[in-house]
């Protein structure tokens, strides 16, 4: 059996642990740089604050409705997430941390354990120890555990936030209740295509002939169908997965219009990506740069451009990636545009030991040694070394006007208790 444990409105819950007065009050959390809303408490959802809404458009709305707005506080959310995962791993040795607020647990050999009770115990321990409420779905497969979790959340009064589906009847009932667009792993396009052929629920989906599914949705769809039928097909993915793509994108606090300013930003983003690449021991084959102006400014036309540059050889060098990114930026740049956001993305990742060397155009082998030193120094002294195209003087600060404190990771920001 698998359990899917999901923290309820995780970011909002983290804020509430250290500010219990917010219990039951509407909360919303903004993305990096206070760009748009990325998390809402149930109360904020009920008031009609849309997900992904730009912050400035809803400033007055939040004020009028008493929605407490926070900048995202990733040091806090990351630390609280690690605590939750540590506690969950006390319940089974096999755990897949699926995202910052979700984990799959494999419950093998629990034949004589009442799983509903076990789930309740997990839920209580996480909430008591960290203050974070969680919902738990337990079922024979991962895809069904997702379904069970959704039911646990949706019918909280009845389930208490823990729901087990195990018998054939309970599986059928749950699948009939689940809309096809809500099935884990079915994207918007597949959902639309399935609805067009009257496949409206997960139950309709498992009744489709396997040939059809394989043809329309490839082997991935077929595996999902098996999993939903209750045949364990998707296993736990343990350990940190290597990412398939890495991106660093930022909205600027104001706007930037000079090429040197943008070059500095882009070089920094490329260096950021390169650092992440080296940390996971991968090299990239493609680099993409994008820039855009403010799409909400009605006075100017929208400008959003990107360029993808294939690299001559897979690389993880900050120097090479920075140079290529700047070349890309120069191709996109137009004078007179007020740029609001830019980013660097790298993809086509391969493991470093499998790097394919180009016959003629070899990477500077010196870079490897240099990068190793750079990473070591930066780890020890906190980003002391930069690449030449980065600005040493200027520090770019993220816009974080509603930031709560780093209650768990900085001794000077812990909660004060009056006595």
């Amino acid at each position, binding site marked *: 059996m698998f359990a899917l444990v999901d923290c309820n409105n995780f970011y909002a819950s983290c804020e509430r642990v250290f500010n219990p007065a917010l219990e039951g009050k509407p909360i919303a959390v903004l993305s990096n740089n206070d760009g748009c809303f990325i998390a809402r408490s149930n109360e904020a959802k009920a008031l009609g604050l849309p997900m992904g809404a730009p912050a400035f458009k809803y400033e007055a709305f939040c004020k009028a409705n008493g929605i407490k707005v926070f900048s995202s506080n990733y040091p806090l959310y990351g630390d609280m997430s690690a605590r939750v995962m540590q506690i969950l791993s*006390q319940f089974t040795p096999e755990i897949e941390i699926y995202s910052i607020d979700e984990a799959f647990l494999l419950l093998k050999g629990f034949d004589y354990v009442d799983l509903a009770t076990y789930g309740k115990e997990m839920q209580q321990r996480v909430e*008591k*120890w960290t203050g974070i409420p969680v919902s738990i779905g337990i079922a024979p497969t991962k895809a069904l555990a997702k379904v069970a979790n959704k039911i646990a959340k949706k019918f909280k009064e009845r389930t208490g936030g823990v729901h087990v589906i195990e018998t054939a009847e309970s599986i059928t009932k749950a699948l009939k209740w689940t809309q096809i667009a809500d099935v884990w792993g079915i994207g918007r396009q597949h959902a639309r295509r399935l609805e067009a052929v009257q496949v409206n629920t997960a139950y309709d989906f498992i009744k489709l002939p396997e040939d059809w599914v394989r043809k329309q949705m490839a082997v991935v769809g077929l595996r999902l169908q098996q999993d939903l039928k209750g045949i364990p097909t998707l296993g736990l993915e343990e350990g940190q997965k290597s990412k398939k793509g890495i991106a660093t994108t930022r909205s600027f606090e104001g706007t930037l219009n000079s090429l040197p300013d943008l070059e500095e930003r882009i070089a920094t983003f490329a260096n950021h990506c390169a650092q992440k690449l080296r940390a996971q021991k991968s090299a990239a084959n493609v680099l993409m740069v994008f820039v855009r102006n403010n799409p909400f400014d009605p006075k100017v036309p929208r400008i959003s451009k990107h360029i993808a540059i294939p690299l001559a050889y897979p690389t993880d060098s900050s120097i090479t990636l920075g140079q290529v990114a700047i070349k890309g930026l120069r191709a996109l740049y137009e004078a007179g545009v007020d740029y609001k956001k830019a980013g660097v993305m790298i993809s086509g990742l391969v493991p470093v030991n499998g790097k394919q060397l180009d016959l003629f155009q070899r990477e500077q082998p010196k870079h490897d040694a240099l990068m190793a030193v750079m990473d070591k120094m930066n780890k020890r002294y906190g980003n002391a070394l930069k690449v030449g195209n980065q600005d040493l003087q200027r520090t770019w600060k993220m816009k974080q006007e509603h930031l709560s404190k780093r*209650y768990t990771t900085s*001794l000077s920001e*812990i*909660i*004060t*208790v*009056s006595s």
Partner: protein
Amino acid sequence: MRLVKTKDTPSLSFYTPLTEGGLKQPIIEGGISAGFPSPAEDFTEVSIDLNLELLKNPSSTFFCRVSGDSMQDIGIADGDLLIVDKSLEPKDDKIAVCFIDGEFTLKKIKLDKDCCWLIPANKNYKPIKVTSENEFIVWGVVTYAIKSY
């Protein structure tokens, strides 16, 4: 490795081992040399680690700073650093970080029939009676207070 109690039944107590964190065995840089090997090499022990000593359950442990003097008679003063464990049950005479009517406060807990008392340790303060009328939670139980001299 240390153990954290996770469940108590009348006949058995359950523990979960915690394996992460803490200081590692020191590396003895003896190497190969022509002289005498260090006579201390066979007696290597792990350095004292206050994290292991003071944070019995890291996942549920948080730090708080004291502001005020209502607990001075039991030695908790303004500015002290508290180690607070949320996993512990609030019992009589435990010192707890409580959240009452919108504010964090540090007091000793006394459970009564249908209410709870928050007892200060300073005669200038009065005990606070907590009833179902109050918005109240026991946020965590204090395990240590650290002061700087």
